[in-house]
């Protein structure tokens, strides 16, 4: 078969919503796009543990501490599901991790913001995980089988993350004046970075169209962003708090909320490494990896030795 024939069969499958599996023929660009997107997503889960780990020892109760540990464990798990999905495309986990550490691969820039108070754990759960879920639910139908299956698992587990976050804020919102202020302050700081999590506007997102044609993406950045904003405007009322956007207003004609301009300058700055915590986050990752090197080597040496002993036992028997 010639290349155009392969490509036609491939696109036909996509058009009929037949999933692509690892050993199926696929265009190089499709493979590359997937590796980039899935590994970036995996890195985000792994780096995403850092801002929260900061609060495990400072959680206000045993219940909150246990919850936070479980959430951080989930994130490690999500990272592993995703690395595993990306590896089916022929790129090793080591290579992906090396790309993260060298700065070649990106992770979600939301994790380059600091977690200053306990309320930030609530705001991250509600807004950051909320935005992530909005992005991830359509990915459960992505055209690449292993990715879609990983996303199904992840979405099931993320729901707890968002709910525990909202509960933290709800508790604070019913607390003392100082706690209410802390709650509002966290929302103020996390709102815009969360809105930016959906990526550049559709007119500035050149790869989106191809990703939609390949059914890796099902909705555009702006569609998902709008959906997120519409949902949050209603949810924030239950907290008795406000979102830090004076332009938020129901638009009867569009049947959506209008919102104020997004500071894309800040977005680009943080992506390009100049956010408040970029250096700290990456340094923490690299250090954890390097500090763990001897453990990985020792485990391998132990496994090899044991296999060798087993072989000798078998010979002797």
């Amino acid at each position, binding site marked *: 078969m010639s290349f155009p024939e392969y490509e036609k069969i491939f696109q036909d499958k996509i058009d009929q919503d037949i999933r692509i*599996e*690892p*050993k*199926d*023929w696929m265009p190089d660009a499709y493979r590359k796009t997937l590796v980039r997107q899935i590994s970036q997503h995996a890195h985000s889960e792994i780096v995403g543990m850092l801002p929260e780990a900061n609060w495990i020892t400072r959680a206000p109760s045993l219940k909150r501490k246990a919850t936070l540990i*479980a959430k951080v*464990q*989930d994130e490690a*798990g999500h990272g*592993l*599901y995703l690395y*595993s*999905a990306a*590896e*089916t495309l*022929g790129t*090793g*986990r*080591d290579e992906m991790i090396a790309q993260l550490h060298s700065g070649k691969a990106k992770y979600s820039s939301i994790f380059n913001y600091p977690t200053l108070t306990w309320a930030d754990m609530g705001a991250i759960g509600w807004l950051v995980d909320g935005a992530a879920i909005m992005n991830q639910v359509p990915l459960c139908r992505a055209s690449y089988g*292993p990715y879609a*299956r*990983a996303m199904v698992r992840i979405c099931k*587990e993320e729901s707890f993350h968002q709910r525990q976050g909202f509960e933290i804020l709800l508790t604070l919102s019913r607390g003392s004046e100082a706690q209410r202020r802390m709650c509002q302050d966290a929302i103020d700081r996390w709102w815009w970075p969360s809105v930016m999590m959906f990526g550049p506007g559709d007119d500035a997102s050149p790869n989106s169209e191809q990703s939609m044609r390949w059914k890796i993406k099902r909705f555009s950045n702006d569609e998902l962003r709008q959906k997120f904003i519409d949902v949050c405007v209603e949810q924030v009322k239950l907290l008795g708090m406000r979102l830090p956007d004076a332009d938020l207003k129901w638009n009867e004609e569009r049947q959506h909320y209008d919102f104020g301009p997004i500071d894309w300058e800040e977005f680009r700055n943080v992506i390009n490494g100049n956010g408040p915590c970029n250096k700290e986050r990456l340094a923490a990752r690299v250090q954890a990896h390097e500090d763990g*090197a001897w453990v*990985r*080597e020792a*485990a*391998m040496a*132990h*496994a090899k030795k*044991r*296999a060798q002993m087993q072989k000798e036992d078998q010979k002797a028997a």
Partner: protein
Amino acid sequence: MENKNIEDRSGWPLWEIFIRSKQGLDHKHAGSLHAADAAMAIENARDVYTRRMEGISIWVVESKYIHASNPDEADSFYDPANDKVYRHPTFYDLPDELKHM
């Protein structure tokens, strides 16, 4: 299964993980992970794939030992079953009055 034979730089091989979700059901492919040996693969699989009681039994097998049919030859490979509709019960045209069959 779905993977090429990928080894970590530290030498940890890749393992495919199969999980039985409850007694009476088959083990089902859940995904893969890296581990130094089988015992570690089982423990890691517990932590990665059964944090919410999704399993009561885990199988692990090193990915390099899995052989798979070739998707490019799927048409000819599964061709023998294509024209044998008579293997299905619905192929047989029987009167509606016939009960319990």
